[in-house]
């Protein structure tokens, strides 16, 4: 239940900390830049600036780090929209309709829409955190390994739903992603597929692989073009259009609400939340739409669905950190480091003993969402000029930054080599309409799936019985069956409605 006295104290605490309002805009700007450059990422930004938080009060430090988190969440959508290159894995679904809008010359509106959805999504995520922090944390504790495994399976199957009749190819791509993620030493110390190389002992670096399969392979496609927007008369830069796009979210309120709720709910799930929240929201919005065929071709609802979900998942991911002391992502893991640097441990005790601090963090983030709207508008105003820069000037620094970013992630050449290998794989998979999104989701979730499956086996006394006896698991299994049935139905419908089609046009949603 809400503690009004603690909320009052929290606001008093916030406004007694002028330094917080200096570090928050700075954090948002850092996050926007790191999110917008493919190859850099929010966890890198947070890790680089983590030492700075030693010189801050605890609440200021957390607000600074969450500002980077929030800024990076939206920053990742900028290259997704402008170049079809997601800055972060949470921005994958933003590409599907955001980039086609750019190709139509609607870059101002697309970026404004994404910012509007991100701002509202972030606010809704934290508002829900305000209201249901304690009940949600109790529910998360009840999710066992069997449920986490099944949620990951659903995440993979949802990709099949987005491929419009390429379900088998999407599942193959997802399986290959899962197998690739299992290369390296297992938790039991067994080496698999390493060729005896020490670089592969820790497995394939998922970040470098994602940059390669998405960014590099997409950048190759741009080599054939002169500008991001080919038509010269559509390369306009208009703050009015950006602001109009921002305000246009009022026409997408159901999508916005659904995306925000889904994102906040899924963001709670450790290790999965932000990566699949945007995909789940996009898929559901597409399936519920009266014009599903317009998705992947520049439907504004697609941008709103993806952005509202990935932004609100931030609030959801904070549940584990604040209520349980368990990080659910790389970003919240770094925040946990800030907790320990200030001798604070998250968890139920933290919430009950320092409720005012918890509420101050949440309230600070609500104000931060408003600041994101303002700073984001100014940032977009500058960055949208990229549409006027010839690609011959734009591509080389982006490729160099992605390669150096992958080197920074691994501190060895294994990062850039992984990037190159996966960029080739991305080019080939895209050519034959195999979903690279499915491969990426498999890569991200494979190791976690194996760990949870093994734990389910062990908890069940050498059987998978917990998966078929726990009520939540049974609901998830029903969802899996429904997802497969829906995907097969979509495949059959596509084949019957377009019998003349020989090769199948590449679906934007198939990225």
């Amino acid at each position, binding site marked *: 239940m809400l503690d009004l006295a603690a909320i009052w104290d929290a606001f008093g605490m916030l406004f007694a900390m002028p330094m917080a309002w200096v570090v928050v805009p700075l954090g948002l700007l850092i996050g926007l830049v790191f999110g917008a450059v493919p190859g850099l990422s929010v966890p890198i930004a947070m890790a680089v600036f983590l030492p700075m938080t030693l010189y801050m009060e605890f609440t200021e430090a957390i607000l600074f780090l969450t500002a980077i988190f929030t800024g990076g969440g939206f920053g990742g959508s900028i290259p997704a929209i402008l170049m079809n290159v997601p800055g972060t894995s949470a921005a994958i679904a933003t590409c599907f309709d955001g980039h086609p809008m750019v190709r139509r010359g609607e870059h101002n509106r697309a970026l404004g829409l994404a910012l509007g959805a991100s701002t509202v999504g972030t606010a809704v995520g934290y508002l829900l955190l305000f209201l249901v922090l304690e009940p949600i944390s109790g529910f998360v504790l009840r999710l066992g390994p069997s449920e986490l495994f099944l949620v990951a399976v659903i995440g993979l199957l949802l990709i099949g739903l987005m491929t419009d009749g390429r379900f088998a190819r999407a599942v193959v791509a997802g399986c290959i992603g899962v197998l690739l993620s299992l290369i390296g030493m297992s938790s039991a110390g067994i080496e698999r597929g390493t060729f005896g190389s020490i670089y592969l002992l820790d497995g394939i670096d998922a970040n470098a692989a994602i940059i390669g399969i998405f960014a590099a392979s997409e950048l190759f496609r741009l*080599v054939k073009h*002169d500008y991001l927007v080919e038509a010269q008369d559509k390369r306009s830069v208009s703050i009015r259009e950006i602001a109009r796009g921002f305000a246009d979210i009022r026409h997408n309120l159901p999508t916005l609400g659904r995306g925000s709720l889904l994102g906040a709910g899924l963001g709670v799930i450790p290790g999965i939340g932000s990566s699949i929240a945007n995909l789940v929201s996009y898929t559901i919005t597409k399936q519920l739409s009266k014009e599903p065929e317009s998705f992947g071709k520049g439907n504004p609802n697609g941008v709103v669905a993806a952005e509202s979900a990935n932004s609100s998942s931030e609030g959801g991911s904070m549940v584990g950190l604040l209520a349980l002391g368990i990080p659910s992502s790389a970003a919240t893991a770094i925040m946990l480091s800030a907790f320990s640097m200030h001798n604070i441990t998250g968890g139920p005790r933290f919430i009950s003993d320092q409720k005012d601090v918890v509420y101050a963090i949440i309230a600070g983030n609500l104000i931060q969402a408003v600041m994101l709207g303002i700073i984001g508008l100014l940032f977009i105003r500058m960055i949208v000029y990229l549409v006027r820069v010839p690609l011959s000037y734009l591509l080389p620094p982006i490729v160099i930054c992605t390669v150096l970013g992958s080197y*920074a992630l691994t501190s060895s050449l294994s990062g850039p080599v992984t990037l*190159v290998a996966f960029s080739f794989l991305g080019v080939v998979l895209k050519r034959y*309409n195999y979903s690279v999104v499915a491969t990426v989701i498999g890569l991200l979730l494979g190791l976690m799936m194996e760990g949870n499956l093994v734990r389910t086996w062990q908890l069940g006394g050498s059987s998978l019985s917990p998966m078929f006896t726990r009520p939540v698991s049974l609901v998830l299994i029903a969802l899996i069956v429904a997802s497969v049935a829906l995907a097969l139905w979509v495949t059959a419908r596509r084949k019957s409605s377009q019998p003349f089609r020989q090769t199948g046009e590449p679906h934007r949603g198939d990225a």
Partner: protein
Amino acid sequence: MNLTANRAGHFGLLALLAGFTLWFTASAWEADATLVNMILIGPVAFLALGLIAAIGIGLLLNPERDAEPAEPAETDTFRERWGVAIGCLALALYVLSLETIGFDVAGVIFCAACMVLMGRRNWLVIAAYSLFVGLAPVWILEGPMGIPVHTLILE
């Protein structure tokens, strides 16, 4: 059988995916054949191989399927026709040369080569821009971010 270049490429991709799946499964089996090690690898590999076989059979039974690329080739200019292939090659060469000629020099050469490939011919602009784009990110990586890299020019 209608074996166009595109269909041959698709068969090649299926062979590659099946080969990887078989090799990785065998590697995991050799390392440890217990159920705990194979609990996910086994079913996933089985599903992948089954679907790859089904897709392959579907291709054989439907000679028109994937006969032509989904995106028709744009063959107006050299860049449109060979841009992707040359881009792949340039990226591979850039990465392989990082430890040999240094991150800084490799970046400068890569940037200049990309600009030339994409139609720039003003050599002064190419030289100045490539120097900036090649050196600045490496300096940031070494300096503010504190990540040591092999360089030829930058200290």
